[in-house]
């Protein structure tokens, strides 16, 4: 796990994702506290529901698998035995994401626009223009790219809502603004995106956004260190003061995580 955390810090800004799956039965409610106490700067994505897309091969931990940008399995094994190899593969995949891939030059170009730049409108135009005259073998891949454009666009369109459901409104605003920027040039998509951005200007959301800024200040006081009893106390006080708000509920969860004892059995 420490290697995954380091890789998230190193490559996360470029689009890499380290996805952690708890596999020894730790209660989902204990995972945030466990991670915060043991790895206070952790930015990896953490599934707390015990899900896995496939069963790991081999007998035990540590265990990891690298999934390529096209969704295929590239490597699986003990990450402690191959950190350099994994990093080299990740770097190659990040390059592939920027340049694109596919059965022809046009599919490759469209995927480069889509995954390398989030240029949804340009990618869709490249595919639409090419589909009209494509041969059968190219057409299949171009139609796949068209589906990928829709899937990725829908994912980023709903991201602000997903983040808001977790009371992460500040990140929700940023996700909405990014989405609006990425779909500029398509009137229908732009209208949808503008409505999502405007939704964050509702009075009740503006209030939550202000509260979240206050909560962030409390969290920032902990710096990069493991949460202390004092921090938990500050979070409890914030929750009590703002009782009834979404941010109070979030502060309560954070306080419980800060109070978690990682040595408990």
């Amino acid at each position, binding site marked *: 796990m420490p290697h995954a955390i380091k890789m998230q810090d190193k490559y996360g800004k470029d*689009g*890499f994702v380290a996805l952690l799956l*708890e596999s020894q*039965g730790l209660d989902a409610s204990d995972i945030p506290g466990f991670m915060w106490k043991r790895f206070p700067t952790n930015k990896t994505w953490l599934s*707390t529901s015990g899900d*896995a897309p*496939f069963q790991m091969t081999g007998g035990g931990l540590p265990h990891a698998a690298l999934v390529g940008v096209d*969704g295929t399995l590239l490597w699986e094994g003990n990450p402690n035995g191959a950190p350099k190899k994994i990093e080299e593969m*990740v770097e190659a995949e990040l390059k592939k994401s920027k340049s694109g891939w596919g059965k022809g030059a046009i599919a490759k170009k469209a995927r480069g626009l889509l995954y390398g730049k989030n240029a949804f409108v340009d990618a869709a135009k490249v595919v639409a223009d090419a589909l009209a005259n494509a041969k059968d073998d190219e057409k299949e891949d171009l139609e796949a790219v068209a589906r990928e454009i829709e899937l990725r666009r829908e994912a980023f369109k709903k*991201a602000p809502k997903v983040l808001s459901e977790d009371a992460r409104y500040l990140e929700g605003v940023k996700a909405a603004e990014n989405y609006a920027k990425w779909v500029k040039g398509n009137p229908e998509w732009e209208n949808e995106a503008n409505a999502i951005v405007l939704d964050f200007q509702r009075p009740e959301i503006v209030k939550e956004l202000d509260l979240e800024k206050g909560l962030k200040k409390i969290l920032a006081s902990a710096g990069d260190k493991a949460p202390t009893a004092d921090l938990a106390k500050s979070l409890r006080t914030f929750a009590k003061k703002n009782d009834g708000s979404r941010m109070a509920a979030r502060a309560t969860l954070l306080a419980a995580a800060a109070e978690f004892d990682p040595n408990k059995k």
Partner: protein
Amino acid sequence: MTLSRLVRGVGMVVVLTTAALAQLKVGELVPDKTFAQMLNSDGRKSMAELKGSPVLIDWWGNH
């Protein structure tokens, strides 16, 4: 519900469960999976939505 329908239904559940937990070989497509709860994500919550990103899946435990 007839017995044969029930048997078919149970069989389908077994097949789906087995498929969901199948092991993979290098080069095979990773099945889609939506994660019910995800911390630190950018709002995407499934393997399909992560297409275009290299993803290191790390199985971990605290024991």
